[in-house]
């Protein structure tokens, strides 16, 4: 499986590059980097110059940058992500909790989007050029242009304030997921529908559909056996791209609905200049995103034999 190996190399090198940039954050932000780094280690924002000098040696901040980086990376890899300035507590539990929330939120929104978009896109493709297609295409295209921070307040106004059927904020159960998921799903619905429609249309036009019908498969069987899978290939890719993209992209929704996810965590870290949390959160998001894209490539390979043998066989 040289293909997998190659993907892993890209994955690791990406992470190393990104981690170096992330490591440099305290050096890039204004102020004394040593103080900022120490702040995370010793929990004292008001260090005098003497103790800074002492701690600088104690924590090895006077070593060459690359040595420090290696040290930092080693700590990070072993789960020691430092202490949050604001929370004064170890970071990993914060990240784990936030990631679970965001992954659940995004996955739910995307699965919802798929559930809407796959049938819509397929129907549009099968009714190409007819009014059904026009309506589906036009409406879903419009979804792209809806800002989440516009839709969310309007949804809250409608469903929480006026109708009072759904909670306006929080993360306390399935009901509280409905509005955030709906908000988050709008743009994916649009993209998924369009991609499904296009790829389904491509598949419907491809000669192998005629080929399979000429072997006696009914239209339905043909679409089911030879259409859907082919049409799904680009959708699967898109799905995971969104999954990765939304890990950090759900900030707005998390803020509006008061959801304690990754976006909110990073947002707070930025507002409070909580550098260790920022570093840890960005590393985690990037790791996840890259991992997802790797998994996607593998899944893509599994469902698309054309790529598989090119990658796998010699």
């Amino acid at each position, binding site marked *: 499986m040289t293909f997998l190996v190659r993907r892993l190399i890209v994955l690791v090198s990406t992470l190393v590059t990104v981690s170096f940039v992330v490591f440099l954050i305290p050096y890039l932000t204004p102020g004394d980097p040593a103080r900022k780094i120490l702040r995370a280690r010793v929990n004292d924002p008001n260090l005098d110059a003497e103790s800074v000098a002492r701690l600088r040696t104690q924590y090895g901040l006077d070593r060459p940058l690359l040595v420090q980086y290696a040290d930092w990376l080693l700590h990070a890899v072993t789960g020691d992500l430092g202490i949050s300035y604001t929370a004064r507590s170890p970071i990993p539990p914060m990240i784990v909790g936030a990631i679970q929330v965001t992954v659940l939120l995004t996955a739910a929104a995307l699965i919802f989007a798929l559930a809407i978009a796959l049938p819509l896109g397929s129907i549009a493709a099968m009714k190409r050029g007819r009014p059904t297609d026009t309506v589906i295409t036009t409406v879903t295209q419009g979804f792209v242009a809806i800002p989440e921070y516009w839709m969310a307040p309007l949804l809250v106004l409608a469903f929480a304030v006026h109708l009072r059927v759904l909670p306006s904020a929080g993360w306390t159960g399935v009901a509280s997921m409905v509005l955030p998921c709906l908000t988050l799903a709008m743009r994916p619905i649009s993209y998924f529908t369009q991609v499904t429609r296009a790829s389904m249309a491509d598949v419907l036009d491809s000669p*192998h559909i*005629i080929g399979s019908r*000429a072997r*006696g498969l*009914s239209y339905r069987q043909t679409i089911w*056996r030879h259409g859907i899978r082919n049409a799904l290939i680009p959708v699967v890719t898109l799905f995971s791209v969104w999954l990765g993209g939304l890990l950090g992209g759900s900030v707005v929704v998390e803020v509006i609905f008061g959801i304690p996810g990754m976006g909110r965590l990073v947002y707070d870290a930025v507002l409070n200049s909580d550098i260790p949390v920022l570093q840890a959160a960005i590393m985690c998001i990037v790791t996840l995103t890259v991992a997802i894209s790797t998994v996607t490539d593998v899944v893509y390979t599994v469902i698309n*034999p*054309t790529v598989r*043998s090119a990658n796998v066989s010699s």
Partner: protein
Amino acid sequence: MAALLEIDRLTVTFGGASPVLDGVSLGIAEGEVLALVGESGSGKSMTALSIMRLLPEGARMDAAAVRLGETDLVAASEGQMNSVRGGQASMLFQQPKRALDPTATVGSQIGEPLRKHLGMSRSAARRRVVELLHDVGVDEPERRARSYPHQLSGGLAQRVMIAAAMAAQPRLLIADEPTTALDVTVEAQILALIAQKKAELGMSVLFISHDLGVVASIADRIAVMYAGRIVEQGPTAEILDAPSHPYTQALILCSSLRPDESGELYVIPDGAGLERVSSGGCRFQSRCHRAVEAHVEHHCASREPELVAAPGGTSGHDTRCWAASTMRESA
């Protein structure tokens, strides 16, 4: 010989445009190979797809009759058609690799008609697929059954298509330019394979090609199409040796690539575009050297000739030309 396939006045139209097929009538006897010959755009493939009722969306098909054996293909329900396709009638395509689903193994696709038409179990179908592949001359059939279309060469893919087409032992094989995309040495192999299978199964073949040379060895009869019409049909030898329609004659001359005394190859004159042709006269009229001859000119421009027995031809040799009788003499 009883006619296995009979097509009577088949017309296919897209939207409001002039028909791509205009009253095509054909018959293929049991065990016979009929070659449908013509240039690109003449309607050969449309004829094939009409028989299978697989015309693209938006096409309108009218026919007095299209009959395969006892089945009326015009009146047949979609369900009946599904059992005809791949069952009684199979099809080969010009680009075999593209006619196979790239995401499914070759074996599973050959197995489809077995399971569908013969009701085989999955495992029985799998065993039979290997036999079929072996029968069409594929080496290592077990391994090949597990491979994907893109892993096959063109010739191999066409063998796979043949295996799939033969799976349910059809009575009619429609081969739509099955060798055009192949190298010449491989083309010969595929032609031989089709001939061999035809002999083994005793099936009829509708062989579509633009190449008269390819057709010569495999066809019993030839039908020549021009602009959506059959312009001439008859026994292979007679069509090739004594064509009675000026288009057939021109096509043979062109295809032979034999220069005349001045070293020039024969060239069919440019005519009006096809869209102008159906104004009532003979469709070939504007390109036909015969049409200028005074005594037939009148008819050629105003009335389209019927497909009638070619003068001096044997029975079954029909032609669609006002000047057919004078043609023979000059040929």
